[in-house]
């Protein structure tokens, strides 16, 4: 019983982090119709940044974290300005560009950081007894609460602020938003930076638990795409529910069926969704 609860808890912790990463993809797709294949690489870079900032440069881990996310945000903005902006109007070009970029960044990570898995130091140590049922690592508990904090901030940003309203207006009707004075180019740039930063946030939160390696990036991207498809394109709620479902299924599957098949479960979900409900759980059916 307590074993099952622990696997479930693992699933929920990973699920929330999945959700953050997926919202990053979903935002960029929703606003710019750009699928960012380099999403996973940004995650990996964030993990390495936070490792090197805290281990090589001695920055306290809880400061290294926001710093790494901010660096990824800047990289995202740089990507949008130089590579993505010229492709607006033709989705095929941006698809090719981000795909190439993902390969380039993966190899850059290999060159810069080396092939070894790295793990930033834990922020906290020890474990806590959960309701007298089982012991659970403090690091994971803290990761969970930080992720919840990130999720709540994103929801606040999108639903309540001027920036969020501009984002929603642009994703519904770009031309109209521009005609009532919304600077869509600036919003694009910030939104791309934000999407990148969310990949970074997932990276720094998860890397103390699962070490990052340059080759691990593609499964991060794939996970995010699976969650977006499962939850439904353009739905924040869908990203959260989808992320949790994927996290829980992967962990239960790995525990009770086989660890080897961990990543298979995501694909099974993807195929089932595409066959039976291609618009996802919360997406809108379009003709």
């Amino acid at each position: 019983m307590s074993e099952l609860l622990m696997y479930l808890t693992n699933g929920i912790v990973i699920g929330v982090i999945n959700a953050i990463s997926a919202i990053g993809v979903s935002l960029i797709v929703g606003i710019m119709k750009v699928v960012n294949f380099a999403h996973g690489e940004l995650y990996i870079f964030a993990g390495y940044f936070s490792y090197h900032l805290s281990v090589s440069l001695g920055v306290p881990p809880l400061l290294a974290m926001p710093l790494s996310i901010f660096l990824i945000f800047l990289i995202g903005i740089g990507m949008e300005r130089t590579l993505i902006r010229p492709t607006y109007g033709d989705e095929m070009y941006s698809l090719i560009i981000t795909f190439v970029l993902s390969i380039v960044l993966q190899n850059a990570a290999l060159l810069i950081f080396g092939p070894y898995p790295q793990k930033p130091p834990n922020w906290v140590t020890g474990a806590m007894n959960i309701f007298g049922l089982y012991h659970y690592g403090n690091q994971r508990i803290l990761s969970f609460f930080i992720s919840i904090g990130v999720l709540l901030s994103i929801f606040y940003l999108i639903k309540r602020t001027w920036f969020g309203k501009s984002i929603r207006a642009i994703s519904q009707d770009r031309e109209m938003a521009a005609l009532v004075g919304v600077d869509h180019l600036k919003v694009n740039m910030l939104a791309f930076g934000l999407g990148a930063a969310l990949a970074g946030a997932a990276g720094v939160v998860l890397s103390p638990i699962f070490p990052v390696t340059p080759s691990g990036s593609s499964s991060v991207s794939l996970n995010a795409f699976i969650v977006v498809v499962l939850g439904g394109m353009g739905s924040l709620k869908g990203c959260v529910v989808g992320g949790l479902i994927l996290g829980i299924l992967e962990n239960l599957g790995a525990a009770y069926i086989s660890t080897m098949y961990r990543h298979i479960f995501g694909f099974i979900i993807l195929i089932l969704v595409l066959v039976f409900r291609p618009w996802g759980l919360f997406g809108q059916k379009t003709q």
Partner: protein
Amino acid sequence: MGVIIEGKGLTKSFGGLTAVKKVDFHLNKGEIVGLIGPNGAGKTTLFNLMSGVYHPEEGTLSFNGMEITSLKSFEICRLGIARTFQIVRPFLKMSCLENVLIGIIGRGDPREGIKAKGEEARKLLKFVSLEGHEKNSANNLTLIEKKRLEMARALATQPRLLLLDEVLAGLNPSEILQALELIEVIRTQLKMTIFWIEHVMGAIMKASDRIIVLDQGEKIKEGRPEEVVNDSKVIEAYLGESDA
């Protein structure tokens, strides 16, 4: 008085089709000018040039003495030109209040509080008689309500020049009267210059100071409403060549 917007030699073509051909026009401050012409005459294209959706291949546009020919839509909007659409385009997945807020946000200064903006948006909704619909999704409004909402959103950008693209299309006679009343209020109370495309002739002839007629992309006539209706070229453009 003085000129608020002036276009010189505007030309825009799509492939082989010249939608707007060497059009000169101007509007004086405070004027209400009608833009008429048969379907495909280039009226909406001219509006698109003025609002930065398209840029002309030839010719220049100036607004309050400032050249705006190659500015982007949001820059033109911030200078003070707003428009409504023939086919209404509110943000359907947002509430009425949020729709108007987008226009206010679009003015630029993100620092002024969202509360003050909310107050202003409420006032604008009241101005177009949509009070009580603040939380309603724009999708649930009737056609005339959507048009009113679009008007409120355009007004939220604080324009000096309002481009109206067939606001009366699809409305019944009593709704047309309501819409005309609103336009009159906008003109007199808010002192706005209005450039107006319309197919409902009775209404536009009565309301406009001046009429500009386009046919196949060219300006064929400009003048007071009574001059325009009796012009042989205009009658020809609408009814075809007479045999006499």
